[in-house]
């Protein structure tokens, strides 16, 4: 049973799409209800992943089926999760029902297509997170683009065509170059005795520094576009602003994580030496991203654009934590990925609520909403605090760990500059909150606004719960991630190949495929402080 959970979870939405075709297009309620049911069932199917997860660094729930065996190529349908992907998978299955619920009244045209796109998107996202075969990963990574392209292009705002095409082409350029690097890497591995596209095989490769540099650049570009990192972020504000609410929520909560996940899962362990050399560059870009995006967010007139830029800033923090490459930094980065998914997802939902009511997102059109919509105000405030990283909310734990970890690494000076981003985030979020929620309720249109209805509260409650749960009790998350992340750290400190001419397989790659117990026991680097929980000292 354990073997098929991942596949079941991933392809359930696909089955949902096929059944969706038989529902009459006019019956919107049934279409929505059915899609909601599919996503909820998918979430339920994914729960055993958490309950059955054994906290160690190994891939679990592994399933491997031969797929393409032709000529020199051997690709398997090989899926599995470890501590890194577990929570991202859970985030995806968790956010999907919320996204579907949010479309109840927001999308009234072409509902069938919209629901089909959402479900297809879920297939792509889950598939990318669980792939343990690099070719399979690439397929899912590309497949994700298609439904998102249609979601932005069909159901988006005024400038949707531009945003959709830009989104597609930006991502495409990066991923195609990654494909070239991937193929080149495979052939190098083939010469060294590798047999298939399985991820662990690639980890066993010992590449010389020059090769690593090129490969890393190609992989890093693809992921940097997806994150997105400054200066490749320009597609994001467009895509976010034009996308319908559910699209923005999924884009922020899950799709952007593909980039940071790509670094943790692929770029860092595969090319440790190149990574080491490019860390200053990436850290610089991350810091610029944090500061620049915060400053730009501050002057936005459109709430949604503001949230979009805040995304760029948050992901700059994530990248900083990841590239600190110590336990705290990486755990913080990973946790911040989840936090960002929850809190920014929630922010986009909130923006969606007011947009549905007023059909505007300009800050100047609002003011004093708190009096008219008290429940909305409360939830909005909680989410804002989470986004800023107030203690007690999830944002604090992640940001704190990132800063602490990065400060202790060689990125100390970057951290000092980046920490001003924490203050800036408070400035732009609170200023926006103040202008929207407080002040005089003088716009007559705002005086008739209705507070959140039951459905909307039901959407927000799980998110609010998670904000506090992860804020007060991050240990379950960090504890399960820790072994897998330690393995990444260990791999990132792998010595580069001594001689540039030959690539050899390290012994760990010679372990037979398809075995879940293939990873070496993780050894903590010497002299590293033991941090079993990752919870900062003195935290509630």
């Amino acid at each position, binding site marked *: 049973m354990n073997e098929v959970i991942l596949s079941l979870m991933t392809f359930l939405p696909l089955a949902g799409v096929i059944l969706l075709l038989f529902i009459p297009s006019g019956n919107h309620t049934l279409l929505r209800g059915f899609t909601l049911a599919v996503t909820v069932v998918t979430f339920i199917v994914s729960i055993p992943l958490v309950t059955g997860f054994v906290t160690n660094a190994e891939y679990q729930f592994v399933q491997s089926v031969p*797929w*393409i065996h*032709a000529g020199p190529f051997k690709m398997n349908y090989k899926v599995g999760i470890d501590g890194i992907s577990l929570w991202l998978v859970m985030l995806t299955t968790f956010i999907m029902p919320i996204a579907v619920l949010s479309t109840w009244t927001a999308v009234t045209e072409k509902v069938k297509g919209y629901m089909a796109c959402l479900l297809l998107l879920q297939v792509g996202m889950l598939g990318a997170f669980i792939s343990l075969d690099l070719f399979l990963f690439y397929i899912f990574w590309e497949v994700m683009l298609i439904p998102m392209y249609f979601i932005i*292009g069909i159901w988006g705002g005024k400038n949707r065509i531009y945003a959709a095409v830009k989104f597609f082409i930006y991502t495409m350029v990066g991923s*195609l170059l990654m494909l070239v690097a991937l193929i080149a890497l495979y*052939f190098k591995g083939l010469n060294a005795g590798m047999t298939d596209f399985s991820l662990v095989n690639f980890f066993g490769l010992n590449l010389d520094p020059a090769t690593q540099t090129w490969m890393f650049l190609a992989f890093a570009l693809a992921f940097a576009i997806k994150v997105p990192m400054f200066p490749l972020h320009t597609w994001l504000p467009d895509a976010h602003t034009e996308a319908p609410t559910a699209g923005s929520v999924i884009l922020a909560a899950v799709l952007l994580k593909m980039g940071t996940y790509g670094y943790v899962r692929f770029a860092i362990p595969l090319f440790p030496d190149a990574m080491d050399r490019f860390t200053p560059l990436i850290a610089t870009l991350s810091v610029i991203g944090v500061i620049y995006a915060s400053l730009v967010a501050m002057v936005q007139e459109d709430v949604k654009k503001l949230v979009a830029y805040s995304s760029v800033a948050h992901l700059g923090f994530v990248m900083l934590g990841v590239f600190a490459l110590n336990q705290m930094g990486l755990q913080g980065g990973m946790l911040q990925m989840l936090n960002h998914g929850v809190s920014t997802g929630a922010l986009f939902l909130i923006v969606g609520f007011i947009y549905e009511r007023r059909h505007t997102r300009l800050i100047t059109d609002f003011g004093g909403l708190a009096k008219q919509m008290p429940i909305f105000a409360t939830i909005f405030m909680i989410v804002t605090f989470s986004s800023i990283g107030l203690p007690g909310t999830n944002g604090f734990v992640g940001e704190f760990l990132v800063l602490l970890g990065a400060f202790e690494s060689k990125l100390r000076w970057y951290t000092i500059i980046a920490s001003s981003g924490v203050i800036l985030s408070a400035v732009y979020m609170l200023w926006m909150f103040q202008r929207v929620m407080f002040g005089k309720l003088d716009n007559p249109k705002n005086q008739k606004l209705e507070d959140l209805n039951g459905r909307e509260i039901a959407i927000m409650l799980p998110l609010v719960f998670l904000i506090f749960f992860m804020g007060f009790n991050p240990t379950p998350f960090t504890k399960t991630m820790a072994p897998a992340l330690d393995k990444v750290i260990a791999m990132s400190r792998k010595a580069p190949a001594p001689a540039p001419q030959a690539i050899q397989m390290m012994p760990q790659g010679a372990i037979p495929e398809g075995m879940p117990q293939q990873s070496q026991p993780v050894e903590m680097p010497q002299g590293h402080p033991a941090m079993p929980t990752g919870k900062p000292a003195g935290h509630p």
Partner: protein
Amino acid sequence: MENIVIPAINLAVIAPEVILSLFALALLLINVFVKSESKAYLGYLSIGGIIVSLFSAVSGWGCPAEAFSGTVVQDNFAIFFKVVFLISAAMSILITDKYLERENCNHGEIYPLILFSTVGMMFMASGTDMMTIFLGLELLSVSLYVLAGFNRNSIKSNESGLKYFLLGSFSTGFLVYGMALTYGATGTTKLAKIASYVAQTGMNSSNLLLLVGMLMMATGFAFKIAAAPFHMWTPDVYEGAPTPVTAFMSVGPKAAGFAAFLRVFIVALPALKPEWTWLLWGLAVLTMTVGNITALYQQNIKRMLAYSSIAHAGYVLVGFTAGNAVGTAGILFYMLSYAFMNIGAFAIIILVGKKGEENNNVSDYAGFGYKHPMLGVAMCIFLFSLAGIPPAAGFIGKFYLFSGAIQAGYIWLAVIGVLNSAASVYYYLRVMVFMYFKDPTEEFSWVKLTPAFALCLIIAVAGVMIPGVLPGVFLELAQKALFM
């Protein structure tokens, strides 16, 4: 006096060609003697002939044989290509009848012409002597000249036929001159003997006769596959020709050109490989770039697909440049999947088009996806496959072609290829932008899906999706079809 030995005539080897020729001749007669307004029955008969020929061709899989003193062979390579030709001919015939009726030029001769050109292509793929290849090419070309100008009431179609005739015969001149020079240098027209003679005498590129012969043959073939800078005829001919003919022309003859190109260069001229590799490298880069960049600016969808087909010839040349098993298997796989995706796309174009080749602009597709959801989805599948996005066959094909180049060490060629591929996404997406992101301005009430069209589209969608998701079998077949 020496006895004249009559070579063994092994008709079984050319059975597929013979069957198809007989069908074509019979159809010509039937067309004359049967008075009928509708010519659809001729189409169905020719499809019957294609199916018989297909079975006959496939039955030879794995049993290499030769005939006519080794001027024609039956090997897996030829059979694989024959399957591609026959499939593309059958799919094009499925979409022909309705188009001809709409354009008021319902003449039955089109079906025998398609069959004859298919026979020509089959000889190009199975010929192992420059003469057989040349004869096949002529049979193909002459039929195609007529096909391109088939709609004789239309000025554009006439122009297309004439243009194709002039430039085509010019390029054939190059080819045959190249063949003559090669014969002059080596004293034989048999591909294998050329190679052994060159190897024996240690001839290399310093032999001017052979080098110029190779260059001229490359020019001739480059014309046929529409590689830049010999592509100028393509957009005009493709735009003017009747759309089913365009669909057919963009797939079958191109594949035939590649089949002959591959066989002549790999079998006969391995000694010049360093020279022709760089030649192909340049051709590939130029073809991809010119095709894609020009396609970005096209408003007419037939012209756009014409330039896109130039770009696709460039991708295939990347696999050719690689010159290894992966790249060559990639060519075979790609030609097969290209047949499905391109003819599928042209089928939709015929459905959307109106009498007199109207309604062929990309902007005419506004909202089409909503008025005909199934056709819209099918078009998206074809376009995504053309753009090389998984899980469509076009992606696997490109993956193989570029892998071949990377394996052979042409990393930059692969990089240029994928960047081109990324640029091409823009113009394929543009069609979808109109189909889905713009509101419909028309009802598209004239778009009627006949059973023949439906069958063609189902075959096309299956042919794009099945090798896309489960490419293993098809790649294995392509691998087995290599003669290297």
